[in-house]
């Protein structure tokens, strides 16, 4: 009875080592990447001309593979729905009163700049490193900071859960609506310049057709979604402080 876990460990160790050696040999056999071919070369050469965006990663995310991005933001939406449903039982909660005066003042000074930073990252996503995903995550970080430093009821009075919900749904609807414009123009779902969106002057703020709009939509979705996730979880943790440790609640 005592030997079984030991044998299990030894077998798993050998299996892992074998797989690792085989995969490493595969990596050693890969061709050198001095010259790129296929889609990567196409993206690097022509992304600027075909989409008007100077950020190739943004061009891939929101033009070449925009449908993929729509699916990925749906995953976030599903996670938000799941967490909200898991924690939806509790109607009221007591919020913590937050941290010290110094922390509150410091975050009060920092928060507008953080929000400005997130906005810049979202709006300039097509000409510099950044985009909807990154900027949305910074937005969520601001709400997380407010939650921790000021207490969750303060945060929910500034950014009510209803507002987050409508922001997230609005982001999804904006994304799909822009996609449907391409469908109406007869060039396919989520098509960019071929659907008649203006390319603008390359490198300026208003350029690259749908990419800035899709950046804003994804930023709304990600920012509202992640902050809603955090709010649900911290609300739960605030309420469970009342119970003795380890006791089942029902």
């Amino acid at each position, binding site marked *: 009875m005592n030997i079984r876990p030991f044998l299990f460990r030894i077998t798993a160790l050998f299996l892992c080592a074998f797989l690792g050696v085989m995969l490493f040999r595969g*990596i050693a056999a890969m061709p050198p990447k001095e010259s790129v071919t296929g889609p990567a070369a196409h993206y*690097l050469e022509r992304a600027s001309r075909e989409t008007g965006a100077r*950020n190739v990663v943004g061009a891939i995310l929101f033009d070449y593979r925009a449908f993929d991005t729509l699916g990925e933001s749906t995953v976030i939406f599903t996670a938000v729905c*799941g967490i909200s449903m898991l924690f939806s039982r509790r109607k009221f909660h007591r919020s913590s009163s937050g941290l010290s005066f110094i922390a509150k003042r410091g975050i009060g000074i920092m928060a507008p700049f953080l929000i400005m930073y997130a906005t810049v990252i979202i709006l300039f996503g097509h000409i510099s490193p950044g985009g909807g995903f990154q900027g949305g*995550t910074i937005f969520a970080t601001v709400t997380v900071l407010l939650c921790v430093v000021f207490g969750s009821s303060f945060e929910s009075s500034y950014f009510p859960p209803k507002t987050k919900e409508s922001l997230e749904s609005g982001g999804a609807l904006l994304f799909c609506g822009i996609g449907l414009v391409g469908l109406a123009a007869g060039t396919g779902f989520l098509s960019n310049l071929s659907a008649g969106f203006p390319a603008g002057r390359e490198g300026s703020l208003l350029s690259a057709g749908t990419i800035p709009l899709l950046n804003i939509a994804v930023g709304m979705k990600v920012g509202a979604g992640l902050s809603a996730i955090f709010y649900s979880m911290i609300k*739960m943790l605030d309420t469970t402080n009342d119970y003795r440790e380890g006791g089942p609640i029902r």
Partner: protein
Amino acid sequence: MTGNAPFLVVGIIFFLGMYAILFERNLIKIAIGITLLEASANLLLIVLGYRTGGSIPVYTLAGGTRTMVLPTPQALTLTAIVIGLATSALLLSLIILLYRHYGTLDVREIRRLRG
């Protein structure tokens, strides 16, 4: 051989995550193992797209060099990080509920207390 060092790091992180998932009994540690697996997958994608001496795939900041790292793995990793955040939040929420229901995080205890 030094060019293969990032792959070695990927392997080590993957091994640590796999070890945590297989042999740890605490649910929080298993969750940490899963996020380690995510991190190693993301790192593998980024490393696969690297070219020697390549600059970032943004024309504005690339400077005079014409060699850029491959953009597609970066786009995939970008979304994978945010999705990993959302899914690990869901994972931790389920663990919170399990703890409230069973009063323990040990997977053996949770299995025994069923019903």
